[in-house]
């Protein structure tokens, strides 16, 4: 059982506060660290990994300080976001070097390479690897000493869907084995597929924490705005406004469309096609107009 604890952690760079008074506990299983770009996720992961001192507060792993404590790396595996690795080495040489630095041998390296299914390309230079292959070799180097805590910074960036699925399976397995796995992402769907527990960070602040479904509900239950075009906008508007799932409808003459605010996401999405069918109205366009992650997050912060 490995628990990573952040206790009132803040970090600022000059006048800019990157992380603002965050307290969280990460336990065994897969945890997603979710937040838009620039929210402070990398700063947090760097503090968790001991590569950055908190300006205030403390980061501990099972009660031991992480910052300036080299011995802690016996228990931590890190997959950094940055691409640079020793490109002049082959995948195998790289993982073997990482094993040796942990006082282990080629056997541990071979096992880690097998875990990430990279044996087939292990004798090629890293410089020739695709993004996904690099990611997997990084993963092998982080797993070589069988760590109880795995930190991954944006591990799915630039991966194709197949590579993404493979890595997700691997992380899920790691979590099921009882390791504490934390990965950061700015993509809701990635986190949804992988983590049952999430920590949401927005603008350096800890916005939400807990079970993914509860937070997802919070996110989907917010007022949604839609832009709808149909064969008869006014008739559609009249029929929709009668239902409590909508709170406002505007006829946008310039756009030739309806701007609808829905307060009950689930009910509205079922209502719209039914109402259209019942009234013999054809729906031409239905598009959400505020689905950007930032708006989802800012709603979450306000909630």
């Amino acid at each position: 059982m490995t628990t990573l604890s952040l206790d009132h952690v803040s970090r600022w760079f000059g006048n800019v506060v990157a992380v603002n008074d965050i307290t969280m506990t990460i336990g065994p299983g897969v945890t997603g660290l979710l937040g838009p770009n620039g929210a402070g996720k990398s700063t947090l992961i760097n503090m968790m990994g001991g590569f950055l001192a908190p300006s205030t507060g403390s980061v501990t792993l099972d009660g031991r300080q992480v910052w300036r404590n080299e011995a802690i790396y016996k228990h931590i595996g890190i997959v950094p976001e940055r691409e640079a690795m020793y490109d002049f080495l082959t995948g195998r040489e790289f993982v073997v070097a990482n094993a040796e630095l942990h006082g282990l041998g080629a056997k541990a390296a071979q096992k880690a390479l097998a875990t990430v299914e990279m044996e087939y390309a292990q004798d090629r230079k890293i410089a020739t690897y695709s993004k996904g292959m690099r990611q997997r070799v990084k993963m092998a180097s982080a797993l070589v000493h069988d760590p109880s805590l795995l930190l991954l910074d944006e591990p799915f960036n630039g991966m194709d869907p197949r590579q993404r699925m493979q890595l997700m399976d691997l992380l899920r397995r790691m979590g099921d084995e009882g390791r504490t796995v934390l990965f950061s992402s700015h993509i809701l769907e990635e986190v949804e597929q992988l983590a049952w527990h999430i920590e949401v960070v927005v603008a350096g602040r800890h916005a939400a924490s807990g079970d993914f479904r509860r937070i997802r509900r919070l996110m989907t239950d917010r007022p949604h705005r839609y832009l709808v075009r149909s064969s008869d906008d006014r008739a559609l508007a009249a029929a929709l406004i009668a239902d409590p799932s909508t709170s406002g409808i505007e006829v946008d003459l310039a756009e030739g469309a309806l701007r609808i605010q829905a307060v009950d996401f689930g009910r509205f999405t079922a209502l719209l096609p039914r109402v259209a069918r019942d009234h013999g109205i054809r729906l031409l366009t239905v598009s959400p107009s505020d689905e950007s992650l930032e708006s989802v997050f800012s709603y979450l912060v306000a909630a």
Partner: protein
Amino acid sequence: MYDPTVARLTYRALLGRRRALILGALPLLLIGISLVVRALAGADDQTASDLLGGLALATMVPIIGVIAGTGAIGPEIDDGSVVYLLSKPLKRPTIIFTKLIVAIAVTMVFSALPTLIAGFILNGNGQQIAVAYTVAALVSSIAYAALFLLLGTVSRHAVVFGLVYALVWEALFGSLVPGARTLSVQQWSLAVADKVAGGDMISSDVGLTTATVLLIAVTVLATWYAGQKLRALTLAGEE
């Protein structure tokens, strides 16, 4: 204190890239010039001393030192790959000490060895000149490697600062401002060379005792401080 894996990675990084070409070019230039000088002017002790002092010790050794010293750690810090060393249960001073050994070895091989060869070509080690300058190159390799390794740890512009130090401070100020010579690795190593050669072909502005103390002090302090800087190295930039 010494980690063979860190050493292997450092050697391969130093000798595998374009750096190896630059490292090899200067020694070849020195040996080439020596061959030409010997062919044209014959064996002459004064010429040998001037060329080894002016080209080898004052220019080549510090430049090789800059390339090897900063190159042993600077690029890894710049591109972030140093994270793979730092995320290991490995004492930071061990990383620095190992990289220092590698930087010293590379600087010695690419500067002291060619100095010896050039010296033998120039006057066949008459008056011990070749050996004396080789010893000076060996000694200054240690101090330069330590200084420039520290520079590579603290600055992203280590190569520029290193070259400015090597060329402006050591070469220019050293010849114009007498006081600056006291604080010059080159002069310290010349004091050692003076002792080896005897005679009056080689002279230094610094006494042997002062030179030895300063050489050791600079090497030890630079290495210690680089270890401290690496312990507190921050990898994350501003987001």
